[in-house]
């Protein structure tokens, strides 16, 4: 009852690693292609400076209609407009000006919607970001993500070994890359919320990876003669139930947040959703393969067993 799979289940994951790596490279490539086609990330106003407003519009006006209404005003000459958070009649409008007087802005919008009457629209949010604070935010966001990865690298290097630390960080970078690629593919903006989501993904994904690594290490400690391949296969297999149960509940909750959490949370919950799925997948198919890049035994303890004994169980593995 406690396991989805039988406790003694053992899957040969190692032989499937190459497919996982191909799949990941494909996804990363897809994201890169999207970035190239779309000329880089869609960056939120908080990073580039300017003005963003969220408008709620009645009368079933589409993006084109709202644009043509507003564009007559000088303020909105270089505006971009898109539907906000998949909600009907909610639009995110951005203008590249950060010297905005809210009183004048309100008056210009009122003028634009004159023919539909004052009740035909509602300004939900106006955000004016100066260029200096924008570049400040961007710097801080990059520092935060890099520091989190560095912190994890150091921590796991201390708790485990350097090879485990590198493997974890490679899989985390993989998660961040794929999430960023998907954000670009599906036209989501990079905002402060999304950066917070990336940090959460890093924290969550490392948890999954560490639990698997811990089991691999435990297997090796209990039986130093175990081969790398066997240790990794049993490590992943034994934790598979846990991985699937906990990941699926988190992913379901995130999916609910994405579907029902409202327009403001949509970008953040999309990033979380992609990141959590990728994080679970990468702790099985990306982090362990990286361990093979390091020559020699996985654990320092194994060294004490002498080279000869290592040779021995290599041979015994072949016999099997």
């Amino acid at each position: 009852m406690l396991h989805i799979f039988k406790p003694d289940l053992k899957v040969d994951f190692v032989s499937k690693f190459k497919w996982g790596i191909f799949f990941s490279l494909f996804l990363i490539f897809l994201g890169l292609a999207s970035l190239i086609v779309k000329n880089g990330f869609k960056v939120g106003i908080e990073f580039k400076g300017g003005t963003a407003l969220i408008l709620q519009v009645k009368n079933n006006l589409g993006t084109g209609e709202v644009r043509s209404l507003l564009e007559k005003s000088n303020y909105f000459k270089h505006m971009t407009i898109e539907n906000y958070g998949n909600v009907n009649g909610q639009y995110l409008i951005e203008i590249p000006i950060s010297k905005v007087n809210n009183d004048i802005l309100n008056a210009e919008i009122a003028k634009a919607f004159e023919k539909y009457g004052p009740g035909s629209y509602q300004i939900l949010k106006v955000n004016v970001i100066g260029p200096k604070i924008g570049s400040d935010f961007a710097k801080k966001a990059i520092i935060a993500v890099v520091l989190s990865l560095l912190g994890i690298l150091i921590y796991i290097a201390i708790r485990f070994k350097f090879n485990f630390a590198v493997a974890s960080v490679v899989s985390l970078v993989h998660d961040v890359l794929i999430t960023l690629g998907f954000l670009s593919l599906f036209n989501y903006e990079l905002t402060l919320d999304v950066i917070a989501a990336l940090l959460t993904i890093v924290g969550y994904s490392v948890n999954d990876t560490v639990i698997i690594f811990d089991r691999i290490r435990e297997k090796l400690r209990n039986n130093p003669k175990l081969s790398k391949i066997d240790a990794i296969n049993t490590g992943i297999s034994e934790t598979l139930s846990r991985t699937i149960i906990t990941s699926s509940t988190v992913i379901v909750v995130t999916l609910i947040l994405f579907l029902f959490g409202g327009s403001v949370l949509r970008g953040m919950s999309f990033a979380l959703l992609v990141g959590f799925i990728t994080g679970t997948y990468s702790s099985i198919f990306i982090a362990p393969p990286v361990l093979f890049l390091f020559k020699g035994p996985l654990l320092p303890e194994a060294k004490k067993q002498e080279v000869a004994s290592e040779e021995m169980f290599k041979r015994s593995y072949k016999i099997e």
Partner: protein
Amino acid sequence: MKQSDWFKLFLVIVVFVIFGAYAVDAFLPQQTLENLPSFMPKKVINLGLDLKGGTHLTLEVETDKAIAGILQQASENLKKQFDNAKIAYNTVEVNAKKTSIDVTLMDPNDINRALDLIQSNFGNFETKTIGSSIIMTLKPKIALNMQKEAVNQAVGVIRNRIDQFGVAEPTVVTSSSRDIVVELPGISDPERAIKLIGQTAVLELHLVDDSVNVENALNGQLPPDDEVLYQIIKNPTTGEITKVPIVVKKAPVVTGSMIKKANVTFSSQTNQPVVSFELNSQGTQAFAQFTSTHVGKRLAIVLDNTVYSAPVIREPILNGSGEISGDFTVRQAHDLAIVLRSGSLPAPVKVLEKTVIGPTLGKDSIKSATLAIIIGSIAVFLFMVVYYRLFGLLADFALMFNLLIILGTLAMLGATLTLPGIAGMALTVGMSVDTNVLIFDQFGTETIKGFAITLAIGLIANMFTAITFTKVIYDALFSNKSLKKLSI
């Protein structure tokens, strides 16, 4: 059960009662709260601006300008002291970058006397000597303190202005060394707020120097102790704005720091709103003395380097009162009175960021995020019961307990709940299954006695630390370690 288990159970109950009281009270209406006995906590969970709507401002205090002002003052002071000490100088002036005072002496032999004077009377400065020139800069530590002081002062002044303006539960805090974050719940007119908060409001009364021809002054023939300021005059019929230059004495007669009271009144002649002010005793004395000796001269009322009016002194003013007239609306006059009462900012502030969130967006956000938490929780709760049966139900209680602790902690700390915070709580629900699975897995592979209670306690004990969802993530890192220490 072991003694230590009883202790754990006791701890759980205590925590449950305390956090529960805070969490429940946080949702009670104000009136019910007031009727509660005094030992009950009465703290509410503050909602962030993104949930309740309002204006968020990030302001930068231009501390360089405060430092420039300090240098200017020091240079004036130094000139006087040089004159007294009979040290002849070519120049004593603040450099173009406003970072130092550059002194050039007439006689290089005076250099040691000059340095002695600076050292004993201008302790905040360090000096560098090149030939007969001395460069004075503020000591770095002192300059840093002055900048900090300027920011702190600005926070005080802004807070004072907002309080007088009447905003419920405003926040005014420094966010980095030079930035101030201002949150005004419920305010959706940022421009008025910025005007009120951001006005430097340095009020000074200067003597108008009518002996100087304005044309000549604009061409550079200006006595060293005079300056040219502008009066902005609006033509009442055409609405045209003209800037009229006026030559005034640099040294003010009265400054804004001497103002005791400021109120909106209506001018008896034009019936327009004006701001009348009253000086403190020091100001009254200075003003009385000055007006007695300068009857018939003009006095310019200068606010933030703009002349508002320059009336003629008809008779000595002994009661220390005056008024500022301009083309004010009642609202503008009201705001100016607040600004004058609460004192001037030590340096100008610049708006780095302003956000206005309407009330509907916040309400919608709360509604949908709460819905997401409820659906998510039900899904997870059901999963636990279906999958783990009785123990799943136990874990569900632990999960609810966990949410209770989060809410209780928020209330206890007077913390602010934002929309991402609610999202975090939803994720906590999803992630806390992890702890349970790890515990149940462990218990599934080992033979144990009296596991039920211990297990429940273990679950709950694990939840104690899970106060924020990021913490949950990091806690989970260790949770399979701590399991080995559990006495199952």
